[in-house]
C-alpha cells in the first residue's frame, strides 16, 4: 500500500492501455483522484473501491460485502472549490475527477450493554441506556453525512418523544457505518440507539404474523406429512407430470383467490 508503487502501477497501466488500444477500440479516460492526500490517475467509471485497488491499495481485512449493505466502506470526500462534505459507499460510488477521499473504517461510539430479553418495549429503556440522546441539538449534521439518506435527526427526534415505531421505520436503511456518530455535536451514537429501537420494535412491539404461526402449528401437527410422503414415493417422471399440471395462481388476482384443490391449505 505504498505510494511509490502506485506511480509505477499507474504508468504501467497506461502503457498497457496503449497496447490494448489496437485490440479493443475503447479508450479509457483517466481521471485524477486523491487517496490519503496523494494524487492518483484512475480509469473513469470505476467505483471508489475499485479505483483504490487500481491505485495499488489492497483491502485485506473488514472491507465488506462490496454490495452496498454492510457499512464497512463509508467514504467521506470533498470536491475542489466546494465547501460541502460529500459521503458515499466506496463499493457503490463512482469516482469523479478531483475527488478528495478519506475512509472512515471505524469511529468509537458508546455501545450500551444490556440483556435484551429483560428490556420492556418502552422509550424509558432507551433513555436509561443512552441518556446522551438528550444532548441532541437538531443540527442535522448526522442526516447530511448519512450515505444511505436516513433522516437520522428525525430518528433521534422520534426517540426523544417516545415513538419507537417511528424511529424503527425511519432507520430501516441504516447500515451501521458510524458516520453520523463521527460528526455528532452531542456525541450521540445514533446508529446504536436506532438499532436498539429497531430491536425493541421488531421483537416486542410489532404485531405478530398470525398466519405464519398458524402455518407452523399446522406443520408441527403433521398436516402435510401424508402429502409429502406421497410425493417422496413418486418417481421423477411422475413428479414432472404433476409439476407441469399444477394449478398456478393467476397473475392479477385478488387476495381472496383460492385454488380448486384446497387440501393443502392451512385453515
Amino acid at each position: 500500500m505504498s505510494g511509490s508503487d502506485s506511480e509505477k502501477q499507474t504508468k504501467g497501466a497506461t502503457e498497457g492501455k496503449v497496447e490494448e488500444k489496437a485490440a479493443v477500440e475503447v479508450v479509457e479516460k483517466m481521471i485524477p483522484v486523491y487517496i490519503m492526500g496523494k494524487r492518483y490517475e484512475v480509469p473513469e467509471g470505476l467505483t471508489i473501491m475499485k479505483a483504490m485497488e487500481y491505485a495499488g491499495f489492497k483491502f485485506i481485512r473488514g472491507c465488506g460485502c462490496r454490495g452496498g449493505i454492510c457499512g464497512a466502506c463509508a467514504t467521506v470526500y470533498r470536491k475542489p472549490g466546494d465547501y460541502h462534505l460529500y459521503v458515499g459507499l466506496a463499493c457503490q460510488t463512482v469516482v469523479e475527477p478531483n475527488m478528495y477521499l478519506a475512509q472512515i473504517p471505524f469511529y468509537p461510539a458508546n455501545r450500551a450493554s444490556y440483556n435484551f430479553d429483560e428490556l420492556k418495549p418502552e422509550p424509558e429503556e432507551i433513555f436509561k441506556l443512552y441518556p446522551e440522546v438528550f444532548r441532541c441539538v437538531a443540527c442535522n449534521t448526522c442526516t447530511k453525512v448519512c450515505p444511505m439518506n436516513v433522516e437520522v435527526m428525525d430518528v433521534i427526534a422520534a426517540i426523544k418523544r417516545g415513538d419507537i415505531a417511528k424511529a424503527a421505520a425511519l432507520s430501516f436503511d441504516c447500515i451501521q457505518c458510524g458516520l453520523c456518530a463521527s460528526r455528532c455535536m452531542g456525541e450521540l451514537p445514533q446508529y446504536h440507539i436506532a438499532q436498539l429501537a429497531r430491536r425493541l420494535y421488531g421483537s416486542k412491539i410489532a404485531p405478530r404474523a398470525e398466519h405464519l404461526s398458524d402455518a407452523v402449528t399446522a406443520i408441527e401437527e403433521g398436516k402435510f406429512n401424508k402429502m409429502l410422503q406421497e410425493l417422496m414415493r413418486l418417481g421423477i417422471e411422475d413428479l414432472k407430470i404433476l409439476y407441469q399440471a399444477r394449478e398456478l395462481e393467476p397473475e392479477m388476482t385478488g387476495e381472496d383467490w383460492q385454488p380448486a384443490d384446497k387440501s393443502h391449505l392451512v385453515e
Partner: protein
Amino acid sequence: MRISYYPGCTLKTKSKNLEDSALASMAALGVELVELQRWNCCGTVYSLADDDLVHHLAPLRNLIRAKEEGNSKVVTLCAFCYNTLQRANLLVRNDPEKRKTINSFMDEEEDYEGEVEVVHLLQVLRDDVGWEKLYEQIKLPLKGLKLAPYYGCTLLRPEEAAIDHVEQPTILLELLQTLGAEVVDFPAAAKCCGSYQIVSNPEFVVDCASNILSSALRCGAEVLVTSCPLCDFNLSQMQGELAHRDSEFREMPILYFTQLLALSLGLGPEACRFDLNYIDPRPLLKSKGLLNEKHVTAAKG
C-alpha cells in the same frame, strides 16, 4: 378553526394528559389543533450567549416546518417550548446578521425570516375563542373548587416573550373564573419551581416547591394550575418530602389548565386523563361533586 400545533417531547409521554385534554377541549370549542407532520425537540431552553447560533436551530426548524405546511401561526401547550420557540423567533426577526448565518447553515431547509407567529394556548383561548364564547360552552362550572393559578417563569419572562403582564398577569385568572372556579391569587404565582435543578440539585428544589406550595395553601388554594410539565413534575414530586418534613403540610394536586377546561366543558374525567397526574385529583374533585355520574351524563346528553 384549525391551528398548527407543536406538542413537544414530554407531552407525548409523561405529560400526555396535557395534550389529550387540550385536543379534546379545543375540539369541543370548534378549534382543531393540527399537529405538525414533522417536528423535533425544541431544545427546551433558549440559548443566551451572543455567539451561540447552533442551539437556535432546533426551535427554528420547527417554525420552518410550520411555514412549509402553510401555517402562519403555531400554538404550544408546554410553557418551556413556548418560551424557546418564541425567543428564537424574535431573534430571527430582529437580528438580520444572525438570521443570515443561520439560514446559510441550514442549507437543506428553506430560508426562514420569522414569518410564523408563535402563540400559547392561553392566548388562543383569550384572543381567538374569547372568554364570553367559552363561558357559553361551559356545561359543568367548577363551583367550589379553589384554584391557584401558577405561571412559573417561562410564560412571563423575559418581557419580550411574555403572554401577559410580567408582574400582574391575569390570563389564568380570567380563564379559571370563566370555568366557574374560585381563583386564589397567591404571591408565589410566578416564582421558579427549581427547573432543571431537579436533576442536578434536587435538594434545592424542595425549598422552591415548599415556598410555592405553602404560599398557595396559606391563601386557601386546593389545586395548583399549571401549563408546564417540569413545574408539574417538580411540584408534585417534592410533596412527599414536604409532607415528611412538615406534619401540617397538606397534599395539593397539580392540574393542567386544559384538564380543568375539559372537565368544565363536560367532556368527562376520561378526556381529562387524570390517570396520568402524579397526585390523583379525583378524590378531591369527587368531594366537590365534580365527578358525579349525573354531571357527566347530563353534560354528554
